[in-house]
């Protein structure tokens, strides 16, 4: 696909993507588009290909076939420009153990070339909203999983990325923090950003996602708004029922 043919409004675009682990096909002919201002929930059973898809979007894995673009930049050939537009929060948050939370956030701010004023202001705002000021000056090696998740989320939001790619965002968070994170995602999309969220927590996907995609055995079996999925499943059930129905139906095939 040439640059001229790409929609201006696209935040993430995967076109006919295929990824194999040896003889095992992890993702097969995946075509998916995510627009700016959209919150997309990516669902699927364990081993369905969610994390592989995410790793291709952020440039850690290279597709065997097809192409991945972020804000119009080809991830394979124009990786630096693509990466400057996105932030990635993996399912296992990474922090330098021997840095404090504040030192880590300063490091990230400097990587993204934020000014001192921007850095101070944004860290203060995120610290307050995610409520981690109490332990910001402790070494991160002493943090619980939830604490780490909050600091990593703050680091991801620090440079106000156009695309936020996040794998299992709510694991380890308390209910209040879950609410805050949901609000932050919604605010990000209202500001023109896009959120690509992989999750097993179906009620969160149901509550906040503009569109939902279901991947099973490497293939995208359904994509659309909740209403569209309901009509595709020909049932007026919860997302859980639709998800189970669609993945079982694919198994039967």
């Amino acid at each position, binding site marked *: 696909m040439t640059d001229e043919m790409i929609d201006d409004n696209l935040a993430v675009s995967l076109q006919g993507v295929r990824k194999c*682990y040896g003889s*095992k096909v992890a993702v097969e002919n995946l075509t998916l588009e995510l627009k700016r201002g959209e919150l997309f929930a990516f669902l699927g059973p364990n081993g369905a290909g969610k994390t592989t898809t995410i790793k291709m979007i952020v*440039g850690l894995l290279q597709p065997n076939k097809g192409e991945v673009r972020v*804000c119009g930049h080809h991830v394979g050939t124009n990786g630096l420009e693509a990466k400057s537009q996105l932030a990635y929060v993996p399912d296992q948050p*990474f922090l330098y153990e*021997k840095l404090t939370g504040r*030192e880590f956030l300063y490091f990230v701010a400097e*990587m*993204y070339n934020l000014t001192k004023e921007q850095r101070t202001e944004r860290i203060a705002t995120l610290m307050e909203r995610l409520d981690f000021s109490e332990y910001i000056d402790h070494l991160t090696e002493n943090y619980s999983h939830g604490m780490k998740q909050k600091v990593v989320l703050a680091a991801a939001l620090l440079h106000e990325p156009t695309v936020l790619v996040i794998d299992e965002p709510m694991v380890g968070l308390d209910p209040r923090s879950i609410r805050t994170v949901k609000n932050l995602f919604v605010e990000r999309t209202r500001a023109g950003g896009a959120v690509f969220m992989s999750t097993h927590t179906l009620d969160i996907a149901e509550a906040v996602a503009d569109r939902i995609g279901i991947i099973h055995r490497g293939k995208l079996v359904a994509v659309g708004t909740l209403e569209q999925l309901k009509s595709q499943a020909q049932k007026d059930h919860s997302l859980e029922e639709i998800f189970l129905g669609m993945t079982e139906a694919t198994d039967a095939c």
Partner: protein
Amino acid sequence: MRVDAPFERRPLIGLLLRVKMRSLYNRANKAADEAPIRLTVSVLLVGLIWFALYFMFDLVFANLERTPLEATVALPLIFNFFFMAMLAMLTFSNAIIAYGAMFGKNESSYLLTSPLTPLDVVTLKYIESLVMASWALVLLGLPLMVAMAGLVDQSNQLLFYGLFLAFFLAFIPIPGALGLFLAWLAARVFPRRATRVVSVLIGVAIMVSVFWGMRSLQTSDDAMEIWLRNFQSRMRFLRAAFLPNNWVASGIDHAIRYRFSEAFMYLGVTIANALFLSWAVVRFVARYFDGALDRAMVGRGEGVRYVPAAGGGMTGWLFIYLPKPLRIIATKDLRVFMRDPLQWSQLAILFGLLFLYLSNMPTLRIQLSGAGWRLMMPFLNLCAVSLILATFTCRFVFPLISLEGRKLWLVGLLPMKRSRVLWAKFAFAMTITLAVAMSAMIMSLIVLKLNLFWSITHLAVVASICFGLCGISVGLGARLPMYEELNAARIANGLGGTTNLLMSVVLVAMVLTGVGLATWRSRFLPFMETPEVSTIAMCVFSVSLSIIVGVVALRIGGKHFAKAEV
């Protein structure tokens, strides 16, 4: 179409290095605050090793100085050997560290999703592995340097120190760059079993070098002069003009002889090659880093399929003598051991070298027919086996309990006494150590044709040392655990691990002192004669001591483990 404004490309290696330095500073601060005794003991031990090395080198050089002709021949050869060995060892250690840092850690993945170029990430990892793999060489090189300064007159000593240090620093990037390339190659070519392949390569390289070394030293009927000439001729390849060890060795040799212009020329050659090689390899690896990372991640994603053999296979019947619950735990530990190349390869390399040495003993230039040597040689072999066992139990057996502590929710709920878990760990460690140590000792006894009494004594001592060392490592592992730590190497290097090492060395020293005294007393006895009762008593005491220490350590550890809260 709309494409967002291009990102301003700027090198961020300075920022990354600053973060690493900050981490190091925080680590040192924490150690000084929380474990000042451990820090002090570590510094003192390093100082002790440093001074011991200095005096050893000083003695060697003082002896060489007394015989100038031998020094002229031997010094360049010693340096060439030393730097050739360093080149090989540092290349492999850099490869292992760089592979882990680039392809095995979350950090690389994190950095590569931020606006850093692969060149930034690879440069950081290159510097990291260079520092981590080479600091010991610099540390050990300092006493060598200070001792060698004694060979030159005082007016030139300062220049000599500077030159020596410059040669060391110029040399280490060469194996560093080769190691970085090897790590990249391993990820590209063997993504599924990179660590295993690198471990096997290291093992094979060491075995081949030792075998070759042994062959070079072997006896022949030639006169000493002819043998020496042949030996020199075999070693000529070490002086090949393109080998970095030759540049450094020649440079230092020239410096000792006050030929500074030649020394500086060799220093220039070393620096130029080190810089060019580093630049070329870092650029190359960075250019093709994405592909290698993809291969490594895909390799991990594919995984390696292990199909258990019927009845548990070899791992099952090895522990047939244990009750079922203990057998299950010991079998699990053995599987983990066999699937971790880092563990089995170190044991295989250490004992492989020992077997190689034993099999070559009859061909070495050592006179074994004297009555004293006939007993002393197997005793020295016994010392070597015991020290290797102590190293192995401290590094791999001691951390077992700390690592199991993380799964205490599972092991602790098994329908058996918690202390019995320790017996399973002990049985696992004992089976492994006994199997390799007994084989080595039996081979030594056959090669040296020892009589029945001493054969039985040596086998009993090795078995008791296995018992004692495994007991100490399992017992202290339970008494001084580090449940919060996941890294086995860090557990072994912690306070508990250091205590364990000291206890193990003390036990080995005590047992071997007893056996050594008995050997000394019997050295001039007719070979087939049974020693006196007091000599036999010394051996019995040594064996009993080791067993008692093992049992006591296990009981102390068992009591503590029964009440452990994780």
